[in-house]
């Protein structure tokens, strides 16, 4: 009688020793998980690459949609200008303050203008503009196209004899590539202006001397490398925004997830590609 209530035991899996804890270390499971993740990454990379190639191939085949291109171009280059401009101005100002403070320790305050212009044109202009545009435009692209996906609007395009890739993706990719350099050029100017304002109004530099130091030190390659980076970052933001939206599933939650994925993935890729491009341009 005393042993009437024995708890049911879980069935033992064949070939596996019952472990005392659910988090037992099983090396083969870890290897399998790593393999699955690697295959998943390769599959996603291939799918995004095919998506990009298909989108770009429509640049060569009519019909074209110039109105959609213009809309996306204005969205990136014009309507992103306030947020990117403010970011650039404040970054230039902070850079001037920080470099003055740091360089004063070894008597190199005179290099403030050089550091500001070099940092802004080569790195901070394109990278910060890329990150801001990723948050603003990448998210908007993913949300708009994702909503179209879950409300059958993309299927409707197909039934109306319109290729959704040509209509939704290609104009945005082209706009990303062409608008970002323009935006970054303005951001470069505003960033240098921020440094100039702090340099002349707060740090005691003379205006003409600050400008002369900036222009004398600046090389074409500094600006061009930043603009090339901007074009690449613009492409990345547009590509991942459209890709995440185009492949979203599952209603409002799916659109939200697509938006987050677009911003996170494009931000990480911008930072990674920044290193690769810097290596390509400046490594000796």
């Amino acid at each position: 009688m005393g042993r009437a209530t024995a708890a049911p035991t879980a069935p033992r899996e064949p070939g596996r020793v019952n472990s005392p804890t659910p988090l037992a270390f099983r090396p083969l499971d870890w290897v399998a998980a790593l393999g699955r993740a690697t295959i998943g990454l390769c599959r996603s990379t291939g799918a995004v690459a095919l998506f990009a190639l298909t989108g770009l191939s429509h640049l060569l085949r009519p019909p074209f949609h110039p109105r959609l291109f213009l809309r996306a171009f204005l969205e990136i280059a014009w309507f992103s200008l306030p947020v990117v401009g403010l970011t650039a101005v404040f970054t230039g100002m902070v850079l001037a303050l920080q470099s003055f403070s740091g360089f004063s320790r070894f008597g190199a305050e005179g290099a403030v203008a050089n550091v500001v212009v070099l940092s802004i044109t080569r790195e901070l202009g394109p990278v910060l503009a890329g990150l801001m545009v990723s948050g603003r435009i990448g998210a908007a692209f993913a949300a708009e196209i994702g909503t179209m996906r879950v409300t059958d609007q993309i299927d409707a395009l197909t039934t109306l004899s319109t290729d959704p890739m040509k209509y939704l993706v290609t104009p945005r990719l082209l706009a990303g590539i062409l608008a970002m350099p323009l935006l970054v050029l303005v951001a470069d100017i505003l960033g240098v202006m921020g440094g100039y304002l702090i340099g002349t109004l707060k740090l005691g530099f003379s205006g003409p001397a600050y400008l002369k130091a900036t222009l004398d030190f600046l090389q074409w390659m500094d600006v061009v490398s930043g603009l090339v980076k901007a074009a690449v970052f613009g492409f990345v933001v547009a590509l991942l925004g459209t890709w995440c939206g185009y492949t979203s599933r599952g209603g409002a939650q799916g659109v939200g997830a697509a938006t987050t994925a677009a911003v996170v993935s494009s931000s990480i890729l911008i930072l990674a590609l920044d290193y690769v491009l810097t290596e390509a341009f400046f490594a000796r």
Partner: protein
Amino acid sequence: MSEAQAPDTRTPKIRLRGLKKSFNGKPVLDGVDLDVMPGRSMVILGGSGTGKSVTIKCILGLIEPDEGTIEIDGRNVLTMSRRERAAVLDRTGMLFQNGALFDSLPVWENVCFKLLAQGRISREKARQRAVEALVDVGLGMGVGEMDPASLSGGMQKRVALARAIASQPDIIFFDEPTTGLDPIMGAVIDGLIVDCVKRLGATAVTITHDMASARRIGDDAAMLHKGRIVWTGPAAELGHTGNPLVDQFARGEREGPIAMELRR
């Protein structure tokens, strides 16, 4: 199958044979065979998840079937080149369940979207044509300048109908045209669909749960059950076909072979 009708020897406008489609290993279409004759209005009935929408999405090229053939005017669209298939699909129109109007465009651009996208018409002429199409479906001229989001469900359905027929297609698909509408608005939409289809002389395929709508719209009807067509016949016979599945579905009865299967 109904035996009351004399056999029609014409080539079907749409012919499906052995159409199969699975998602994640779960079969949705399991060998669909269906003929839709030219100029006829076919209604496909069936419970939720029986594959009605998948069937028309396969015909429209939105989903690739795993097996089977889809013939339009006697030609298998699945073996056509992309260009040929696009040309065939160019002659079709589709009204989606939720309208699927483009939020970013005003109503008039939605209505004439296909004509504008293909460069077949100037924007000025498209605007006039859209107004005419909107009047045809009982909407005022001012609606053309409105955003789709500001329209009621019934108005969105009418705009979607105007868009589906604006390019004067040969074949028109209607996906649950009366879902979410009150009975009177449903009857209005059905009437508009019948008028438009007859005026164009088009072949129509409608999927619906709404039996009143099915009887109003359809010349013929087919019942899709467990991924197969289990009955076809005149839509007027719905409710007294002699097929227990169809009769139960048409009468909306709780007891019957469909309910028995659900309980198992």
